[in-house]
């Protein structure tokens, strides 16, 4: 499954399980946060990705991180 800040490109090329990441420069992070807060965010994104891997989806599905 594909975590990216550019889900439109992902669905264009045919990716089926896409989670929208934070930014191009830091897909799984956010330097504006404290280290602990950033790791917590990263965990949320990864857990969302795992959830999507375990879920049946329509083609080109894009999930957000709550």
């Amino acid at each position, binding site marked *: 499954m594909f975590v990216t800040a550019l889900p439109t*490109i992902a669905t264009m090329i045919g990716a089926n399980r896409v989670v929208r990441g*934070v*930014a191009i420069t830091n897909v799984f992070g956010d330097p504006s946060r404290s280290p602990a807060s950033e790791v917590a965010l990263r965990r949320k994104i990864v857990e969302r990705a795992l959830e999507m891997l375990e879920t049946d989806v329509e083609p080109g599905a894009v999930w957000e991180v709550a």
Partner: protein
Amino acid sequence: MQLELASYPVAEIDLESTLAGMAFADSRFAAVETAIVEPGESVRLTHVLDAAEPRVKVEDPDATFPGALGTLRRAGEGRTNRIAGAAVVACANFPAEERPLHEQEGLVDMTGPGAEHSLFSSTTNVVLSFTPTESVSNEEFESAVRETKLRVARDLAAQTVGREPLHVETFTHRLGGTEGDGLPAVALLLQLSSLGPLYEIYLYGTTLAGFQPTVINPLEVLDGALTCGEYHWAALRNPTYHFQNSALVRGLLAADGKRLRFAGVIACRGYNQSANDKERAAMLAAKLARELSAGGAIVTTDAGGNSHTDTMLTVRACEQAGIRTVAIVAEMGGLTDYVPEADAIVSVGNGEEYVAEWLPDRVIGGDTLLDGRPAADCGPVPVRNYLGAACQMGDLDLRAVTW
């Protein structure tokens, strides 16, 4: 706003003497070489950074290229003189390693098969080749090159003051455009890059970092408010000259009140770096277009890569707001990004195509290309290396079709 643009053909201007009288001493340069190159000469220009048309604000020459060179004064008004058929071309190789610029060579071939891939094979080019000092940084060097190039453009054009022009064009524009029976209102959403030092378009001399979509006047676009400081994606980026002579802005102004109502120009940043920033900017651009009562919009692109996502998200936001759009993009083998709402796209060419090999008699700017090959004998050249070949404001007539 009203702008008078007076044209003076280059053949009537003594470029050589003016150039000879100019000083280029600057602590950031080890050397500056100058050359005047004509269309049809067997010359290849390499390491081309930018090209600017010689222009001067007649009433206040010091305000030429306001903010970038001149004092801050609103562009797009009064009288501007231009040397028609000429360009000041800046060539330079950056001193320090600049990783993303590898293989982003910029070329202009004055004749041969590459000539049709750049506007600047048809202009008399005043070529400035800059060599940096040992210790100068990329950014300091770039700033000096950019300023010098604009200064030369202004000082060359200053020769026209007081002389009779060949012709004078008068442009007028008011926000909202010129009404007419059943004319559709069209907005131009103009993408301008901001990706960090060496990848910036300058608006009145400042970068678009943190920029949100903003209404600007089309006459400002034509009159030096926008200058180029971006040096990647040679074929896809927007050199200064392309803003000054924008076929799209000129075309929309000419059609205003006749085939459409030219509602206005919305400047948009390309390369917003986070997903949220991209979505927000797209939403705000579409919202502004709505506020201008636009029923249609043309969305341009600047350079390559994720700026194409900014274009597509803007298209999507406009369509969802009821504004029908046309996007202008270059292809790199195919589209870089796409949304289903982008059902009307102008393709300004495929940058991955190759132009047949050509051996110039002379090379100016640097004998070795950025990838190490000899400039005078480098084999077939990809379209992506020719300056402005696939400019995504639509200034050339190249198009990609399926074979």
